[in-house]
């Protein structure tokens, strides 16, 4: 049921969303997920391992793959992994993680920082 789109993907020559490498990571996931669904601790360990071995670029590609394949559990899992990775991190860290550039006018960024000053407590040092 989950894999009807996988067949379609393999038949579809023109797909830009998923490369072969990503597919090999996503597809074994349902089995892994079912196996360790019951055990939360194991899941956390698997998550940590995944983060270590996978670069941020890979992570977003995995997300796109899971989204394209309509694989909800994997999508949730990858999104949570990203959320955990950026939690409590400084703005610069998050920018680097996602490959974003600050394109604000010189004074704009300071103004925003002031406006949201209340949200800046407790951020990790980089």
């Amino acid at each position, binding site marked *: 049921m989950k894999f009807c789109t996988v067949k379609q993907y393999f038949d579809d020559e023109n797909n830009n969303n998923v490369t072969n490498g990503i597919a090999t990571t996503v597809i074994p996931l349902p089995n892994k997920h079912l196996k360790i669904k019951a055990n939360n601790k194991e899941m956390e360990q698997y998550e940590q391992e995944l983060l270590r071995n996978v670069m*941020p*670029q890979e992570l*977003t*590609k995995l*997300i*796109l793959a899971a*989204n394209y394949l309509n694989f909800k559990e994997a*999508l*949730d899992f990858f*999104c*949570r992994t*990203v*959320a*955990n990775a*950026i*939690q*409590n991190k400084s*703005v610069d860290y*998050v*920018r680097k993680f*996602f*490959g*974003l*550039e*600050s*394109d*604000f006018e010189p004074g704009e*960024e300071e103004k*925003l*920082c002031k*406006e*949201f000053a*209340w*949200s*800046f*407590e*407790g951020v990790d040092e980089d």
Partner: protein
Amino acid sequence: MAEMKRHTNIDRISNLPWDVLDTILVHIPLKEAVRTSILSSKWRYKWTGLSRFNIDDKCFPSYLSDKVLRWKVILKIIDQVQSNHGGPVEKFRLAAYCMPNHCDLDQWIWFLTDKGIKELILKEFDSIKRFKLPPEVFSCPQLSCLELYGCIIMLSPTFRGLNSLISLNLSHIYISSDTLESLIANCPVLERLTLINIDHSTVFKISNLNLKYLKIDSKFEDICLKNVPLLSTVDIRLRVKPRHSDQGKACNLVRVFGCLYSINKLILSSNFLEFLAYNDVPERLPAMLNHLLTLDLRDARLDSSKVVKVLLSILCSSPSLEELIISVSRFSFLDFQRAECLVDLYFNKLKVVKIRGLLSTNHECEFIKFILAHSPVLETITIVTYGGEIIPNSVLLQFEPASEHVKVISLRS
């Protein structure tokens, strides 16, 4: 030119589909989601489109302790969301120490009702001036979970019911008996109902064909459970001493629980047991509670023979009972030994017994002896005595338990 192209290629997040971004951002605390507005100009207002907003004390820095100032911060958040939000808002939770301006809160709730809210949790702690919940909340077609603390609830005359409401939790709420009855009866898919410290309702009339879980911890004068065929767990604590009911009325135990055939778990506390004991308690209920698996009596004053009668009546009507938990505040099984109905009463499915609060008197030992002798498949019995001595296992094992493998655990608190 080529270098600029390289830069835009690296951005691996901003162009993800919005529902994917939303899935990521709802997993981080709201205050961090708000911080994303500083990432880049594209991200300036992305956070305002979130589908879930959870405002609790963790949103605020520790130096911000003034109630009014905290509301000002919340107001900034909800103003920005109202100005920029595109799609639906699924969940809003406000559980922060603050002093909401009722006007602002009104407007925000209207906004949420427009946005197809599914889960609304409001815990406003300023109970001096209770918040009048806009009646529009009760016409939200997709509302599936409603949790309110410290509000005044009034339904509009056009109230038709909440067709998607599955869970309703009302705490420290001001609502009349009739309004509450109407609300409960008109939620066709309601499964869980929790009522804590309800004001201005003297009688709880609960009628709902789908209700599975009921918890009440409040003062009330009477309770009526009618047409609740799926009710599986009932947990009731009466906060005041029950008043003497009229003579000639049926026994409260029979009136309230007589028709609850599908009950699996019953948790009854102190004053409510006394309430149930009013008027002649029969030896057993008119119909057996064939599905009752767990009976949990809390703060039971078992020195009153009426309350003991309630316990015995339930026990005699529960052939499938697997777990019996009694936490006692006073215990004296006075008429116990003389009860004839107990001679042939065997708990053929009873596996676990826990009794707390004993003072290791003779009467209590008699009860334990009775349980041990009448429970052929009992696996464990845990006895906790308060003050005094623990009942030594050697004494307990002398009671000739009917179950060969019973494990007796005797503790002292």
